[in-house]
């Protein structure tokens, strides 16, 4: 009995030692030589492997940083300047700082602003819906509301607001990796400067229809009237194909455009509550990305156009 136990222990130990030797030999023989700095760079990366930098993952990005010898074309949007400084420190390179960006949803076609004209009955996917037809509202440019952007976001920064049917970006969580921008078949989401104190002004509409058509489909649509472009002292606003666009590199956040917009298509976010010219606020208040759901309720009565179109449809 005792001998059996002893023999078993001996046999197992010998086997273990033998296998350890084999493993050691294999490991040394097939060792892959790699620049140790890749590991170091990878350590300071966020490790989300989101692909926002254009590489397959954080390791691929680190490899590119090490191999290219400069950081001109490499930027981690998730880690931002903080991480890039660390990467630069590891590699002894210079970093090109970038202004922090955030994903911005440029559609305000909420259920109240933009009534549906048919019922979609396919798989819940914007990609499929966009390939099939113009969408279940009168606007053929706006948000389809199936949440491809939500599925694409690896940081849980986008969610669908059930009240508006539109995606909402959580600025705290958004890393500006751009996954949602790529996922949106209607090209509604754009990466824009996060802005000082997170303040931004943007046109929350991508409709290129003529003013009347756009307005009929959605009461919060940009009608391309051009008032904002005339008002802008910095030449940041251009109107093309019946649609205004604010160049965020030129915009100085003066908000003159917000005041003149007749449909409230221009949104200003994170500005202090008492706006400089509150009386100039346009009728349908923006159901903006950062506004809580309670405000939606107040909206409905101040959107008479919507009610009118509703009746016409029936």
């Amino acid at each position: 009995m005792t001998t059996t136990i002893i023999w078993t222990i001996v046999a197992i130990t010998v086997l273990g030692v033998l296998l350890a030797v084999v493993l050691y030999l294999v490991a040394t023989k097939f060792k892959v030589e790699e620049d140790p700095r890749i590991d170091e760079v990878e350590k300071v990366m966020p490790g989300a492997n989101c692909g926002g930098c254009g590489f397959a993952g954080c390791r691929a990005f680190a490899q590119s940083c090490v191999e290219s010898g400069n950081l001109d074309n490499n930027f981690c949007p998730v880690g931002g300047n903080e991480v890039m400084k660390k990467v630069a420190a590891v590699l002894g390179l210079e970093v090109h700082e970038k202004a922090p960006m955030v994903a911005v949803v440029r559609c305000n076609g909420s259920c109240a602003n933009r009534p549906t004209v048919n019922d979609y009955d396919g798989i819940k996917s914007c990609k499929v819906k966009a390939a099939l037809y113009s969408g279940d509202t009168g606007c053929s440019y706006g948000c389809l509301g199936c949440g491809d952007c939500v599925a694409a976001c690896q940081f849980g920064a986008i969610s669908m607001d059930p009240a508006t049917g539109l995606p909402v970006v959580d600025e705290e969580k958004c890393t500006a990796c751009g996954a949602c921008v790529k996922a949106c078949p209607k090209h509604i989401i754009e990466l824009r400067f996060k802005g000082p104190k997170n303040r931004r002004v943007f046109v929350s509409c991508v409709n290129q229809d003529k003013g009347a058509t756009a307005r009929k489909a959605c009461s919060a649509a940009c009608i391309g009237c051009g008032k904002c472009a005339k008002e802008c002292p910095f030449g940041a606003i251009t109107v093309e194909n019946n649609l205004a666009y604010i160049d965020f590199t030129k915009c100085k956040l003066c908000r003159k455009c917000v005041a003149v917009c007749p449909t409230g298509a221009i949104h200003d976010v994170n500005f202090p509550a008492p706006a400089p010219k509150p009386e100039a606020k346009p009728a349908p208040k923006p159901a903006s990305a950062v506004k809580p759901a309670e405000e939606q309720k107040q909206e409905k009565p101040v959107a008479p156009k919507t009610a009118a179109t509703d009746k016409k449809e029936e």
Partner: protein
Amino acid sequence: MNKLLVSPSPHIHTKTSTRSLMLDVVIALLPSVIVSILYYGWSAVVVLASSVVFCVLLEYLITKYLLKRPGTVGDLSAVVTGIILALNLPPTAPWWVAMIGAIVAIGVAKMTFGGLGQNVFNPAITGRVFLLISFPAIMTTWGGAKGFIGGVDAVSGATPLGIVKEGLMQGQTIDQIFAAHDFSYLQMLFVNIGGSAGEISALAVIIGFIYMLARRVIRPYITLSILLTVGVFSGIFWLVDPSQYTDPLFNLLTGGVLLGSVFMATDYVTSPMSDKGGIIFGVGIGIITMLIRYFGAYPEGMSFAILIMNSTVPLINKFCKQKKFGRA
């Protein structure tokens, strides 16, 4: 004008649903159920009822409270599992054995993998095998049940396969065993007393098979390849030495070969998708069954054979693809 529905094509759908398919399987199982109740009486009803009730109840509780998903009881797959499990139990088994079988079948073999469609092993067989290993005495005792049909009260004794196995171990030849027990193939076809509830009537199972074929619920390849393999394999051994190996007809009609090949091996989830894969799957089950019957410790090997082949299904699916249009 009313709002139009818009969706990608196609715009119509077949009437067949998961639920209707499962309902067809339940209907196909009815002849076997009726025969077992007629011959084993109230005890068969108790086993059947407890097995079905616990299977359905467990699936309901797990989806509702554990997974917090919409209920899937409506697809009737738990009912099918419950009936098949009951048909695999001795009719004299107590209700709590059926309950434990249901817990293993639904709780372990099915829901832990994610529910219907996700499981690797056939739930009912997993439950049965668990019981067979855990409660060998209960699972191999047939008898004491009183049937509804006159004349056949109080059946007792082992299954034909068990009798043969025992006899062979005691050094008897097949002829001696057969002579001693008066086996009749005709009896096996109609009512083969001794065996689990679903094994007693080959004819009832065959009726169910024909119904499922007619309703296009299953394709015949898996079942036929199992039966053919069992026949050929046992045929070869029988021709070599008829005194030690039972003949093909005996092997086809006794035990769980028919029940297993018709209702258990053909389970969609745990069998290969393609016809070619199904044939390989069936041949494997046939060979393993016969190896266990002839050389193993257990008199019957159908359940083990199906479980073993279940594990090969992903591999078979990967290598057996159907012919694609316009490709060599």
